[in-house]
């Protein structure tokens, strides 16, 4: 059975045997959305960002203040410009350098499979569909549906004026449906996949493979995010710099946010040999963990993860040439030593730290499973050479510590908004074409 919590602009819980009615509602809503100027959509989203901060029921939820910042008009305009090169392509045909006009048409209904690791992930996915004027049919993890519904619940109260006309948040809301259904239900999953003009899939390896294999329409575009692995590399200059303590604070945030369950969560930190020993740095990193907000240190973990962390700690405490620095509880764990290699993720704020002679030793470890590498390499030439080498081997995002989770497009090497539209042409004359 399919449960729907938002459809046709109404926050009502309804049950459905299939997606026919819900998809029809999204189709009607997306046509209204497509008729809006992109500026209006951005203006409404900008207001939404401000309003969610005023709502005491949601403004203290982790990640909500970041959403508010991310929804700023300048940021959304920049994201669109970056993807479309010119935001006017979304609203109509525009002259190009060639002899035909071009326009970015939305694909239609985007079906989103949202992973159960980041409560706010679904919201970012929906906003990207709105910025490309697509309708959204969102399969949400049940635990996260209330937060997303609360965020979207601010839309009906928003009205904006644009060139003498008034538009409301309902113009956006009608293009969104939030559903939950049992992912193991082959029938429901196939039906969901088959109403999509575009599929956005977030998740782990098994989920992504299973969903990607579902039947879909011939023209359907599939955008896959995950599964991925992230890590960090700091060079000697960075480690020995006066600001290193602050850098560790920022890096701890990278580890702790989402309790290390995101594809952008770092699992290993490689440290170039410096005047500080691995033990010194482990100790300073431990202090940085202790300075981090209690809410990040004390996140709930399943008992299975407790056992995994306890086993990892014991393994490193028992073994030769390894060690473990950890909180008394399972709040954070630093595992030091071992070979120069990537390590299987444990999650729950377990970071492996390893010493290397030079950061270049890390380059051969990179493959296409690597999403983000947080690098502490101050020298711009060295930094760029390293980035060029690791991205050529498959890494997607080379960032600075403290920003590893910032949702900046491209993500996973994908310009999402660009993939969410069809580039169509209109030719008005013969012209001459190269």
């Amino acid at each position: 059975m399919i449960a729907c919590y938002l459809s046709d602009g109404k926050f009502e819980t309804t049950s459905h045997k299939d997606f026919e009615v819900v998809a029809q509602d999204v189709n009607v809503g997306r046509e209204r959305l497509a008729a809006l100027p992109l500026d209006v959509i951005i203006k409404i989203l900008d207001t939404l960002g401000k309003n969610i901060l005023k709502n005491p029921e949601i403004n203290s939820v982790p990640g909500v203040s970041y959403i508010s910042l991310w929804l700023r008009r300048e940021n959304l305009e920049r994201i669109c410009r970056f993807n479309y090169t010119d935001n006017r392509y979304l609203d109509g045909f525009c002259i190009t350098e060639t002899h035909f006009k071009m326009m970015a048409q939305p694909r239609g209904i985007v079906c989103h499979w949202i992973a159960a690791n980041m409560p706010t992930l679904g919201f970012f996915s929906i906003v990207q569909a709105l910025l490309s004027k697509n309708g959204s049919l969102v399969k949400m993890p049940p635990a996260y549906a209330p937060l997303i519904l609360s965020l979207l619940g601010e839309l009906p109260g928003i009205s904006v004026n644009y060139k003498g006309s008034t538009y409301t948040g309902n113009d956006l809301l009608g293009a969104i449906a939030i559903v939950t259904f049992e992912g193991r239900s082959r029938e429901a999953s196939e039906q969901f996949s088959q109403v999509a003009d575009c599929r956005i899939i977030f998740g782990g390896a098994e989920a992504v493979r299973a969903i990607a294999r579902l039947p879909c329409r011939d023209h359907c575009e599939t955008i896959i995010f995950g599964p991925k692995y992230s890590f960090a590399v700091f060079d000697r200059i960075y480690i020995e710099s006066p600001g290193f303590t602050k850098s560790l604070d920022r890096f701890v945030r990278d580890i702790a946010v989402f309790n290390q369950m995101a594809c952008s969560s770092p699992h290993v930190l490689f440290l170039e040999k410096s005047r500080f020993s691995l033990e010194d740095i482990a100790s300073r990193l431990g202090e940085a963990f202790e300075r981090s907000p209690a809410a990040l240190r004390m996140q709930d973990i399943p008992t299975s993860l407790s056992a995994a962390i306890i086993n990892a700690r014991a393994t490193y405490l028992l073994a030769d040439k390894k060690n473990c620095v950890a909180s008394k509880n399972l709040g954070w764990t630093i595992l030091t030593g071992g070979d120069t290699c990537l390590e299987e993720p444990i999650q729950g704020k377990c970071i492996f730290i390893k010493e290397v002679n030079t950061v270049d030793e890390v380059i051969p470890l990179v493959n296409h499973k690597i999403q983000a590498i947080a690098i502490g390499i101050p020298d711009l030439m060295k930094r760029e050479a390293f980035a060029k080498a690791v991205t050529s081997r498959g890494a997607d995002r080379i960032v600075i510590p403290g920003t590893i989770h910032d949702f900046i497009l491209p993500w996973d090497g994908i310009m999402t908004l660009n993939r969410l539209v069809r580039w169509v042409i209109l030719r008005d004359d013969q012209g001459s074409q190269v």
Partner: protein
Amino acid sequence: MGNMPRVLQSPDASARDGILAGAPYILEDHRKNENLLPIIRDQLKTAIRNNRFIDHYFSRQSVDVDKIGRLEDVPYIPVQMFKHFDLRTCPEGEVAKILQSSGTTGGSPSRIPLDKSTTLNQIKALKSILEDYLGKNRKIFLVIDHEGINKPEMAFSARTAGVRGLSIYAKKTFYLLREENGTLTLNMPVIRDLIENYAHEDVYAFGFTYIIWTVFYELLKKEGIRFSFDKFVLFHGGGWKKMKDLAVSKETFSATIAGLFGAVPENILDFYGMAEQTGIIFVDCPHGNKHVPAFSQVIIRDPFTLEPCEPGKPGLIEVMSILADSYYDQAVLTEDLGMLVGVDDCPCGRKGRYFRFVARVEKAEIRGCGDTFRELH
């Protein structure tokens, strides 16, 4: 560890012998803790001297054994470590045999080195526990499994541990199942013999919970066979995850199986134990509580804070023991969840802590879009 020094002195052997010779459930918890702590401290010192891994473990956590003031502060080693490290604490030459336990989850086996004194202590301990539940006389022992499970060449598993351990009280042993082409069937000649000739004997039995229910009970039901023993006690353990999947409660299991043997449900005794702590089983009393004997202690630890839990709060089960000189069994953290029910006041009259098994901890899986770094080709 070729240059390992000889054991300098055995732990406070006379104190331990005294505990093993006494009744297992008469000491109040605080008295028991007072008895165990000095013995364990001595054992830890020997372990640190004789095993570099354990030496790392203590020094890296800055543990000064002389300053350990409570059993709760003894560093516990997770049970999985027996699969990855040699946790022998006696000289290699003193190891009489190595138990290899595949456990219930498969994978690499645990390796548990046993010397003579440890084996002897384990036998004494188990005898002491069984005596409390069965009385002093040896009895007819029924194994609800096939004889092959106890062959020396078989890997040491929870099933073999139970059979070998509990057989120390047997005056005669019968295997009620046979294995034919990998399938378990009823050992009919033995079953007929028991029905005809042993109904009035003192009988105790052991079986793996899941096998008793899904194989033995089903086969007996199909054949319409029931026993009618005058005095019958069944010890069963393991497989509760599978039983939970089958939606069979402990109460249903006990009532049904008691009926099968002509016994009362109070004599169907679930126990908790593991190969890494052979010699100690935590057996249900008539009130469904598992009791901790004098030579052992149980601590339930919060799965996040790792602090001891108050009664009523589930947590990871840590088992402590003074039995072993040959490996680190002083404090072993299991991957099982249990709940302390109370201390010294079980209506059955046994003193000390009493607890209940709750569940096995599921295997950890990577959640979310984070994943292995390995590329699949």
